[in-house]
């Protein structure tokens, strides 16, 4: 017990490989940024479908949200990486493959687009109808109303919830190592196989993610609160 405790705090092996591990962590952030951009744009599209006047579009939006909110991220990543290229290949009659990074981005982006769609929709529906009527009566087109009146208010309203979703998305980027995207966990498992010392390596990885999520999460929340207070008040 005391031996293993000493090894738990002996994160020297973690420090020894810091350049490789840092490069892995950077990959985590790249995946996060790509997936977040995709999730936000697809989510906005799905939210607009869900509040559309046509029933068929509304049904499509609901279907999108229910499928992707209920899909496990890991299953989606495996499906996108191993099935989607085959389906596209069948359509185009060629051999087709995704780079693991692209698969990770598509899978995580679509899964989280389901969550973001609901956040967007709640934000849009909370806007008083009078704002839209006033804007239209001034002669603004639909696009201009969306851009100038709706979206600025939606962004402010959905900020607290979307910070939580961004944090879950960042946490979810750790599973991309399972399709061999060279992120932090991938490097950790490679080094574990080489050195056969899982304890300090996995503990170090857990502590690293813990520190990042805690610090980035709490400082984002403080910043967002301040920004909202300045604009709303």
């Amino acid at each position, binding site marked *: 017990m005391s031996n293993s405790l000493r090894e738990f705090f002996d994160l020297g092996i973690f420090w020894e490989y810091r350049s490789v591990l840092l490069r892995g962590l950077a990959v985590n952030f790249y995946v996060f940024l790509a997936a977040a951009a995709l999730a936000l744009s697809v989510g906005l599209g799905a939210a607009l479908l869900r509040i559309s006047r046509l029933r068929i579009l509304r049904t499509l939006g609901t279907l999108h949200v229910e499928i992707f909110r209920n899909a496990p991220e890991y299953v989606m990543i495996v499906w996108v990486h191993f099935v989607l290229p085959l389906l596209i290949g069948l359509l185009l009659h060629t051999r087709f493959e995704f780079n693991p990074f692209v698969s990770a981005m598509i899978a995580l982006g679509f899964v989280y687009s389901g969550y973001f769609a609901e956040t967007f929709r709640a934000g849009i529906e909370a806007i008083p109808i009078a704002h839209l009527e006033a804007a239209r009566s001034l002669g603004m087109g639909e696009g201009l109303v969306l851009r100038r009146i709706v979206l600025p208010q939606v962004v402010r309203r959905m900020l607290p919830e979307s910070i939580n979703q961004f944090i879950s998305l960042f946490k*979810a980027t750790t599973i991309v190592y399972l399709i061999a995207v060279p992120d932090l966990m991938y490097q950790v498992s490679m080094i574990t196989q080489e050195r056969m010392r899982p304890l300090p390596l996995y503990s170090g990885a857990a502590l690293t993610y813990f520190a990042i999520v805690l610090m980035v999460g709490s400082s984002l929340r403080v910043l967002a609160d301040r920004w909202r207070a300045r604009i709303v008040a």
Partner: protein
Amino acid sequence: MNNWHRLVWNQRDALLAGLQVTVEVCVISVLCAIVGGLVLCLVRMYVRPLRPIATVLIEFFRATPIVVQLLWVAYAWPELFGWPNSFFDAAWCALAVQSSGYLAETFRGGIEAIPRGQREAAFSAGMSPVLVFRRIILPQVLLSSAPSIVNQFTVIVKSSALVSVITVQDLMFQSQKIVNISYEPIEILTATAAIYIVVIYLVSAAGKALADRLRMSYGIAAR
């Protein structure tokens, strides 16, 4: 259609066995998460000397990604504590650990929302602290956090697909095994994804209905 029959329907025994393991892992871990969350929350609120430890544990459990925790519990805990000895135990334990952190915070909110007067009335009626907790506080807290418990259960089912990584033979493990034998991933992986989506949808819909009905019948309005 032929392929679907050959690759999915003929493998139904393996898939069902996998689904059974998934259900076992999820049910054990949600029960442990409720108990663990209650313990963490009570220690944080009422056991002053241990409060910092409980707070750090709750934050740690909430902020660490599930796959990291899974590997940590499966490979680091046996060296640290001599337990868990099987990957099945590691799987439900890691899932429970993650959710207990979230549930601890929910329970804390629930306990703080109970009016002080109720506790004072119970004490002045001569109830012991344990009895007050069991008869007055716990039922209300469980009812008011029922929606969060349901939500955590769906999170657990979703994360449970990852236990195949540490070779627990759940649904995802079985379907990947079939893929590795047949080299034809399209049908079986699509079917697996569909099973997960349907199961999680049903769990969350049924759980929500159950939670709402319980809360209605005990006089707490459904949200």
